[in-house]
């Protein structure tokens, strides 16, 4: 097919049209309107960087960014440990290993909103009643403080996403040639040495993929945040995505919310571009 072929454009029109109207046009439109007093319908005044200056002084937005960053960092570490651990576990020769895979992956298929509601019950009622029964104070009052809200969100996302990260590690673990491991075994390497010197270097690329995937996913958490804590207490567990939604659709400050959205895009893009850069570098190294 050549550029001037009718069929080339015929095949591409539906996706070009939808991508333009749904992503590209709103993206630029939003960027421009973040410099105005836009109210969702029209803009009457050009404000320059006033919205952005407001963001800089906005303690609530800054707290949302900081809270989101903390969730993202803790989740990345926890998820990679869990994901690799589960992958090593289910790639052992066991009768039940495929059943285990099925179970560990299951939470990933269910929406964050529904899972958040289930865990709200567990944190509040189940933890609470166990805490009361055995006198463990640490288990009572979950989700009513910033700290327990933070760990609630981390536990929920780790439980939900670990199966997904496990799948990525499995793909790399299964691509390791069996004879490499056997040869090392014959040479007398113990299981830790085999892991350290063969398995670990060969699954290192999976680590890069999972790290950035979990980082970018954790930054974009919304459903889990909404259903588990709804940002409470006093907006202290509100993440960036929720801050944008609430500023726009509850407080009706469209241009201001859009300036948050632009900052949000920049953060997520930096994470993604760093990943592309690392991937390229790795390809060169190989």
């Amino acid at each position, binding site marked *: 097919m050549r*550029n001037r072929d009718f069929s080339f454009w015929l095949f591409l029109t539906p996706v070009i049209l939808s991508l333009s109207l749904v992503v590209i046009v709103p993206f630029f439109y939003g960027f421009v309107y973040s410099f105005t007093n836009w109210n969702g319908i029209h803009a009457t005044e050009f404000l320059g960087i006033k919205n952005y200056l407001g963001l800089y002084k906005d303690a609530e937005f800054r707290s949302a960014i900081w809270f989101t960053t903390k969730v993202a960092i803790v989740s990345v570490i926890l998820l990679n440990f869990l994901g690799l651990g589960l992958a090593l576990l289910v790639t*052992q020769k066991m009768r*039940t290993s495929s059943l285990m895979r099925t179970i560990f992956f299951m939470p990933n298929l269910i929406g964050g909103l529904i899972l958040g509601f289930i865990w709200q*019950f567990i944190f509040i009622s189940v933890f609470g009643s166990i805490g009361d029964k055995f006198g463990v104070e640490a288990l009572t009052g979950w989700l009513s403080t910033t700290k327990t809200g933070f760990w609630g969100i981390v536990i929920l996302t780790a439980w939900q996403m670990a199966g997904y990260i496990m*799948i*990525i590690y499995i793909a790399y673990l299964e691509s390791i040639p069996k004879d490499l491991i056997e040869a090392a075994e014959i040479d007398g390497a113990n299981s830790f040495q085999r892991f350290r010197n063969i398995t670990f270097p060969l699954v290192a690329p999976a680590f890069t993929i999972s790290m950035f995937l979990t980082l970018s996913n954790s930054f974009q958490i919304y*459903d889990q945040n909404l259903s588990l804590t709804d940002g409470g207490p006093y907006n202290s567990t509100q993440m960036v995505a929720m801050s944008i*939604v609430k500023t726009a659709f509850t407080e009706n400050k469209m241009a201001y919310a859009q300036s948050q959205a632009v900052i949000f895009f920049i953060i997520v893009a930096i994470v993604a571009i760093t990943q592309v850069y690392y991937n390229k570098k790795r390809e060169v190294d190989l």
Partner: protein
Amino acid sequence: MKMKKRKTLLIEIFGILLALLWISPFYLMIVNALKTKRDIFTDVLGFPSELVFENFKKAYIDLDFTKSLLNSLLITGVSVAIIILFSSMAGYALARNKSKLSGFLLLVFVAAMLIPFQSVMIPLISLFGKVDMLNKTGLIFMYLGFGSSLSIFLYHGAMTGISNSLDEAATIDGANKLQVFWHIIFPLLKPISVTVGILNVIWIWNDYLLPSLVLSDADATIPLKMFLFFGQYTKQWHLALAGLTIAIIPVIIGYFFAQKQIIEGVSEGAVK
């Protein structure tokens, strides 16, 4: 050898215990959905003292579940079908055209994946509101826009394995481009279509934020209805949990029948 066997057994027992812990939230959901309110209060971990199926009946009616299930099925089904059709066409066209323009278009689609939903959400809703498209049709069109990037990327990758000589042979036999695509290429892309289908079904089925901004209550999908329902029954856990159990059942059924394809599809989509 014996020691090795014992070690494997210990690992397996550990694995089974961990798996049980992993699904314990679902256990807690189901057993407590079958209890009375007071039963939950006195013993949250154990089995119900009497089975209360009434909770499920009430939750089913209040969730308007037949209707929300049909809405979810319709929106997810139509969206995924058009994503598969249009993305495979685009992936094919981009792979068969080696020009700079074609490479640039592919780059635009890939780059669009970097844009998080919340950064375009507000202008998107405003634009579609102006042309009166905040409805099911508009939502399906939006899903095509958000879902096509990754799908085109996957199809484009798969096309490298399909030789151009197939196209040429069919063209000599008098087939036009559409016929070549539909009768020769599309069937060969079936494995990747399964992957694309699975990946898109998972996120569209579970999506909450976008439909909450686009759909009216009459068109509510399962997650939307679940959110409203949960708001009504805070602190009435027996009903809320029954509703959550009902909402999860379709996913569990789907997973039961297609778990191999789902795990393979997700693996393929993630590693590429």
